[in-house]
């Protein structure tokens, strides 16, 4: 029993955290749209739910705190108090406090408790401001179990609305269609215009209104919200609002019940009519119990209610909650299956048995589908991470006295859950950097002819097997000459070496390049950039920086979609097997060894009309000549052309074996810093193959050639 209670409490916590995250987003949105009633309602609903379930599970501190926040929000909701920046600040602090309170079930530590009390006092003070004007409201006791929703507005109900404008309504400039449109936007609506009274063209007064409406609206609003829309045409129209009686989910809605509910017909008459073989509506019209329009209108309501029910079912079964460790276990199992499948394929190849081969092939196809499926379950939209940054930018800008907004795009872009978790820190670094050092103070921005409010853009989009994430600001940017001078001083480039902008800026990510007092005259710019790079490297991604002084800077992160299972190209170097991630393979070519030799020291080959630097993997890994299958240098060289960081690099290998699915296993701590490999995998025959780190290899080749070129020129 206790165990199951713990489980419930855990579920409560999970759901409450989700609600609080939602509350944070809503409050931040509310800050820019303080009059948006829907947002106020959403914030109220979130806090109300947290309060109710906290009381149920014995989190009294949470429930008591939430109660005060709810009271304050309620006053904003009914218009007694208005939403101010200060209130949003207080509410955000309240949200953080609730998040903290959630950790404690029993007595609170002194510090937490006093923080709670001080915030509660502020909420009470805020609420008191609204009390004198407000009608006195009975307040629920803070410790009460979740009561029914305090305002009817919170329940989703279906309203039958009839709106009959008077003929003269156009005369005062009323735009009737706008009113109806506004009403329909409140929820799920079926709108039925009636134009029966429209006269012939000759008799028509073009400035008279002949149309009236019947509207079925299912929405979480109260009647007043509907009346508010028509408040300025009260005297010029007839507005009737009824609430349709609710039906438990899944139960069919019957025409007879609707007609009785509307008061069009008695239930006795319905029973009588049901005895006949004809359709109920037809019978009732024939017997002149109801008119045809009445039946039509009731049928429209039936249709509307059906749609509402269907949608509710859809949304309740659209997703289920699964513990993430179960997903991890699933992906691990799929990984094992992939490895096993590789062994099966290998065995069938050796045995040369036709029926076994056919099974192995079918198995491979299925495993491949299973892999894609399992991986897609782990995909999450990156938007959840983006939302955290809105709060970060808001709080930092207040703290620093700067004005800025965070614009996000592509929040729906999906990435593996592990990748998303690991991306959090680097993104915080980059955004902090932009807020702290990129965006200038408002007065300085004005002087520079820029808008006072700085903009930080966070954009995510798919690009093949990668996701591109860009963090950019329209701040002061970096000074190219300063970076170059620093790069020369630190020995990253030769004094007379010409470097492309992209290459130069990317030096900022090198460890040991950035220190607090460099690059710009503002201290700190660049600090932590090597940390960002390291994190992104560990994800198998790349980071690139571009900047223009006075205009801002952009960091582009290129992140692989997944870290667990990838398609790889198996190659042999010496007697060992290695894997090149297929997503970075451009092509494979063969070249006679002597023609490769002729190109001499520069180690460059021509591929698709482009000069591509190459690296001989045999010598890179120091495999002696005897370790190859053939003695000495082979006659024909196999070169895998891989692309990394927007440039190509050739990898000279001994044999290209073929493609295969690869389960990535991390390397032990001892091997983590080995240049050129990023992980390992187990092959079909049980041997281990290392996964080549194409980005690092490309950097090695680039550096090798650069230094050689510089040395050659010097």
């Amino acid at each position, binding site marked *: 029993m206790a165990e199951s209670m713990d489980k419930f409490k855990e579920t409560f916590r999970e759901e409450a955290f989700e609600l609080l995250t939602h509350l944070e987003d809503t409050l931040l949105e509310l800050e820019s749209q303080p009059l948006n009633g829907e947002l106020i309602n959403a914030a109220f609903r979130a806090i109300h739910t947290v309060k109710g379930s906290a009381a149920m599970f014995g989190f009294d501190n949470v429930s008591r705190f939430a109660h005060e926040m709810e009271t304050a929000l309620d006053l904003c909701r009914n218009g007694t108090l208005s939403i101010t920046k200060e209130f949003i600040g207080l509410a955000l602090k309240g949200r953080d406090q609730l998040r903290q309170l959630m950790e404690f079930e029993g007595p609170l530590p002194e510090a937490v408790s006093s923080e709670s009390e001080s915030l509660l006092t502020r909420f009470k003070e805020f609420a008191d401001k609204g009390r004198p004007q407000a009608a006195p409201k009975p307040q629920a006791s803070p410790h009460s179990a979740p009561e029914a929703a305090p305002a009817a507005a919170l329940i989703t109900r279906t309203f039958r609305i009839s709106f009959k404008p008077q003929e003269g309504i156009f005369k005062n400039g009323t735009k009737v269609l706008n009113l109806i449109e506004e009403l329909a936007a409140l929820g799920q609506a079926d709108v039925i*215009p009636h134009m029966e009274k429209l006269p012939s063209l000759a008799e028509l007064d073009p400035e008279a209104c002949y149309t009236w409406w019947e509207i079925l609206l299912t929405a979480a609003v109260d009647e007043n919200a509907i009346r508010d829309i028509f408040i300025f045409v009260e005297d010029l129209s007839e507005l009737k609002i009824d609430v349709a009686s609710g039906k438990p989910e899944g139960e069919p809605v019957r025409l007879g019940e609707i007609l009785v509910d509307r008061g069009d017909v008695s239930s006795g008459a319905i029973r009588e009519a049901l005895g006949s073989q004809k359709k109920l509506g037809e019978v009732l019209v024939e017997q002149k119990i109801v008119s045809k329009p009445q039946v039509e209108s009731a049928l429209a309501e039936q249709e509307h209610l059906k749609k509402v029910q269907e949608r509710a079912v859809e949304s309740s079964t659209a997703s289920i909650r699964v513990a993430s460790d179960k997903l991890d276990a699933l992906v691990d199992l799929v990984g094992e299956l992939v490895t096993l499948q590789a062994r099966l394929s290998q065995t069938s190849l050796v045995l040369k048995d036709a029926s076994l081969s056919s099974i192995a092939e079918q198995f491979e196809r299925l495993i491949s589908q299973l892999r894609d499926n399992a991986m897609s379950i782990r995909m999450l939209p990156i938007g959840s991470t983006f939302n955290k940054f809105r709060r970060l930018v808001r709080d930092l800008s207040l703290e620093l006295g700067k004005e800025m907004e965070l614009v996000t795009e592509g929040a729906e872009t999906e990435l593996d859950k592990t990748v998303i978790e690991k991306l959090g820190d680097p993104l915080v670094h980059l955004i902090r950097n932009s807020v702290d050092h990129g965006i200038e103070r408002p007065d300085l921005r004005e002087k520079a002819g820029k808008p006072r409010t700085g903009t930080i853009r966070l954009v995510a989009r798919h690009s093949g097997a990668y996701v591109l994430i860009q963090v950019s600001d329209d701040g002061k940017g970096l000074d190219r000459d300063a970076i170059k001078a620093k790069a020369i001083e630190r020995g990253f480039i030769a004094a007379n070496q010409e470097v492309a902008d992209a290459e130069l800026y990317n030096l900022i990510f090198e460890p040991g390049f950035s220190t607090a007092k460099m690059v710009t005259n503002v201290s700190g710019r660049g600090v932590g950039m090597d940390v960002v790079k390291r994190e992104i490297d560990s994800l198998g991604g790349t980071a690139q920086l571009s900047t223009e002084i006075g205009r801002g800077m952009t960091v582009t992160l290129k992140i692989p979609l997944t870290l667990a299972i990838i398609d790889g190209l198996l190659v042999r170097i010496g007697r060992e097997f290695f894997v090149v991630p297929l997503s970075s393979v451009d092509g494979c070519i063969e070249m006679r060894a002597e023609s490769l030799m002729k190109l001499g020291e520069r180690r460059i080959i021509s591929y698709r009309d482009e000069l591509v630097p190459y690296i001989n993997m045999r010598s890179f890994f120091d495999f002696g000549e005897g370790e190859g299958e053939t003695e000495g240098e082979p006659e024909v060289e196999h070169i895998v052309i891989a692309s990394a960081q927007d440039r190509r690099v050739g990898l000279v290998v001994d044999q290209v074996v073929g493609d295969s699915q690869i389960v990535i296993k991390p390397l032990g701590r001892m091997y983590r810093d080995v240049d050129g490999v990023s992980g390992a995998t187990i092959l079909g025959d049980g041997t281990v193959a290392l996964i080549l780190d194409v980005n690092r290899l490309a950097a090695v080749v680039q550096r090798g050639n650069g230094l050689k070129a510089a040395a050659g020129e010097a």
Partner: protein
Amino acid sequence: MEAGQGPTVINLGASLTVDKAAALKDELFAALSKGGSVLLNLSAVEELDLSCLQVMYAARAQAKASGCGLHFSGQAPERVVSRLSACGFLRGPTERSGDLESALVGF
């Protein structure tokens, strides 16, 4: 208005609001009185309110009764179409604004 052998084409202005309703009614009435079919060109329309919509419905009814047609040409802007849809004048969502004529309820 361009009268000719074919249908009478009426190029509607940008804003079809209550102050234009009387003129629209007169124009349509005159065009329909000639007996031929009438083509309402919606290309320039930016705003359409209920008064002018009612005139169009009444004109269409008269055209039907007298056996001559009243049709739309050109595409109404998305804004107008979505407002008509929200107000219940369109049967389901229209893929293209060109479908307006067939999508208008009871037209």
